[in-house]
């Protein structure tokens, strides 16, 4: 798909080594690549223009430090600039001193307001709040029914109201009920509307002046293009939004709209939606989305996700085994199960950086069914075979194939993949640094930049077991 920015810049700067400075002349091409990368990520063109100017000013005249390549320097300037725009740290939700706190959820049609409302409700419960939901979408067919179903799923009470009630009446009823039943947050899910639809925007203004919400959250689709700024700006002007929820980030959109929205509204991004399940909501981290906009992978989210799922003790044990080259088929199987546990493989893949040895992963088609098949094959082996793969001869292979309902070739292929995995894992044990060092030594004539040039995105030391290419590479 997209080529990542640091690769493009590397190409631009290939002939640049040896020159001590970034100059007007040699930075021109780099700026063009940056501009294209940002536009392809749907960052608004005005924002891009401004950003390029800032980057140029900062990049010009900088000394090339011996430890940084020009590529790394420019990428760092761009990253810092983007993070500066997006604001630093996480943005916390605000609550009223006198409960109930009223939250209004607003946005265009189809941006994901109702789904987000359900997710935020769940998030609030996990953080010790007692929310009450109400849908004031009296327009879209079955919209209120949708929130009712979601409320049931996350086990949060909902104020149902009656048919024929106006949005204002529904919201008032909900506030009354919250007061009576001691709910401390009321989430008002509003109807999707176009920001140019004056009548409906007036309706929101009325809701806002009546309820004085502490949070007016604007829900924006990560796939939105250049128009993101117009709708966000209009919603902000009329309602004074307090924060943004960026949805559908589990897709492969770059989410450059987030940058534009932040720039034009000055409002923080508070949450990102990463799936259709009720718990697929994450706090917003500027540095992560910046890496994504630049096509450098959401490494931190990945590591966090892995840490959440993997038992520390297991991980240590695995590392020990790798160190002693004792990675058996049994361990292989264990890792497979871990992988499966970690949920959607595809969303994991989209978080991986597309640099270095994992570059080709972005185009790999990972079929969950394949995982099941592989597991079946290993399960059909005896414990002895799993502990020592070398004893698996022809007749054993035939038996395993029959047991797992596959062709013998599939067993052969798996064993080959396992041996390859084992071989590559051996090089992991020294950490990625070790691998890099070895390469550097060998490829001296190519210049030391190539081996190191991979790092601007910060290729992480992947935790044990995170070895996709061996399993899915072929």
């Amino acid at each position, binding site marked *: 798909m997209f080529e990542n920015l640091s690769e493009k810049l590397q190409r631009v700067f290939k002939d640049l080594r040896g020159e001590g400075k970034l100059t007007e002349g040699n930075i021109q091409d780099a700026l063009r690549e940056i501009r294209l990368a940002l536009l392809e990520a749907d960052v608004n063109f005005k924002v891009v223009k401004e950003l390029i100017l800032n980057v140029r000013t900062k990049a010009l005249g900088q000394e090339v430090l011996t430890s940084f390549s020009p590529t790394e320097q420019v990428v760092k300037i761009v990253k810092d600039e983007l993070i500066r725009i997006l604001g630093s740290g996480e943005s916390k939700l605000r609550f009223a001193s006198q409960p109930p706190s009223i939250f209004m959820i607003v946005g265009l*049609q189809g941006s994901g307001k109702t789904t987000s409302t359900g997710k935020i409700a769940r998030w609030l419960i996990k953080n010790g709040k007692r929310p009450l939901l109400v849908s004031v979408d009296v327009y879209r067919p079955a919209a209120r*029914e949708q929130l009712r179903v979601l409320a049931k799923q996350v086990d949060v009470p909902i104020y149902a109201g009656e048919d024929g009630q106006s949005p204002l009446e529904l919201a008032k009823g909900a506030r009354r009920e919250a007061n009576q039943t001691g709910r401390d947050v009321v989430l008002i899910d509003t109807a999707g509307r176009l920001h140019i639809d004056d009548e409906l925007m007036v309706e929101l203004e009325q809701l806002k002046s009546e309820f004085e919400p502490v949070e007016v959250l604007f829900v924006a689709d990560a796939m939105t293009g250049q128009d993101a700024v117009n709708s966000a700006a209009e919603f902000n002007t009329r309602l004074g939004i307090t924060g943004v929820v960026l949805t559908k980030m589990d897709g492969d959109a770059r989410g450059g709209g987030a940058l534009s929205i932040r720039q034009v509204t000055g409002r923080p991004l508070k949450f990102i939606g990463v799936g259709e399940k009720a718990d697929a909501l994450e706090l917003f981290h500027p540095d992560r989305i910046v890496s994504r906009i630049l096509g450098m992978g959401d490494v931190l989210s990945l590591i966090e996700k892995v840490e959440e799922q993997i038992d520390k003790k297991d991980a240590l044990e695995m590392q020990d085994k790798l160190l002693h080259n004792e990675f058996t088929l049994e361990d292989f199987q264990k890792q497979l199960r871990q992988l499966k546990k970690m949920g959607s493989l595809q969303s994991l893949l989209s978080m991986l950086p597309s640099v270095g040895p994992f570059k080709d992963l972005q185009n790999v088609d990972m079929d969950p069914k394949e995982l099941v098949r592989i597991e079946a094959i290993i399960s059909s082996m005896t414990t002895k075979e799993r502990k020592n793969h070398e004893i698996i001869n022809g007749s054993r292979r035939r038996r395993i194939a029959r047991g797992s309902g596959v062709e013998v070739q599939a067993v052969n292929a798996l064993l080959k993949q396992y041996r390859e995995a084992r071989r590559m894992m051996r090089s992991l044990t020294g950490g990625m640094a070790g691998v890099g060092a070895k390469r550097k030594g060998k490829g001296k004539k190519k210049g030391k930049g190539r081996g190191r040039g991979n790092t601007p995105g910060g290729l992480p030391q992947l935790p044990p077991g995170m070895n996709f290419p061996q399993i899915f590479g072929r």
Partner: protein
Amino acid sequence: MEKATPETVGGVFQIMIQTLFGPPPEPTIYERFQKAVAKTRDELVERIDDIFQGKKEIDEELLEELEMALISADIGVRTTDEILSAVRDQLSRNQLKDPSELKAHLAKHMATILERAGDSSPVIDAHPQVIMVVGVNGTGKTTTIGKLTHYLKSQGKSVLLCAADTFRAAAIEQLEVWGERTGTAVIRQQTGSDPSAVLFDALQAAKARDIDVVIVDTAGRLHNKSGLMAELEKMKRTSERLVPGSPHEVLLVVDAVTGQNGLEQARQFTKTAGVTGLVLSKLDGTAKGGIVVAIVSELKLPIRYIGVGEQLEDLEKFDPETFVRALFEV
């Protein structure tokens, strides 16, 4: 001047009554397209007009502003480059000098791109005809189906709806409301059931009831989720088994506010679900829908319909020439 005959006097009266008290005339297709692309025109074409204001010659600065105008319409870097290099080419051959000619040139080029996908209205001689509607979440699939049903019924076709979005909360109920509005039967099962099973039921019912068109509502799915995309493949197989040659049409609904990701959506849905045409939805916003130009240009998929509102009538058959004419007012 001749004397008025009783017939002409009567005719005049009839016309008076008709125009004053009769139903308003049907807007022409051109008028409706004009309404649909009003926002795009305001944003894109008027901006281009501004750029040309007072310019005597086409210079680099003008071209750069033009580039920005095209990119801000979500047309994408690559298609923008293509359009601009065509302009540059003509400039260098002195076929283009005056900024005022540039607009006509742009319109022509845009029309050429949109016509690349070939005929936008296939003649399908199947019974029942199966139309599958697919897309990412929130693009307006179900609303499009409601409007499409209304359109097909106005053409005298019998329609049956298939509620194969068994995943999203209240999706089935949403389709049923559209079914009621258009007086169309909806085949459904419970939320969570297998979409292919619902499709199976719907196709059997359609055959038994001698229905002309079956429209299949599918769950919104992100195109990078292989499991969900495989589900669409399975539905296609089910359809093919019951009605050979079907689905005859797989419509991808693209939200007009979509940015560059729209291209990847189209690519992936075409790969797994075999998209045959596009529906550009929500074009009544400030959205410009430029991404479809990129999609048509790169993937050669025709645009079949455009959605311009939430009412039953707010769906138009797409016609590249009329679209561009309404857009550029040339």
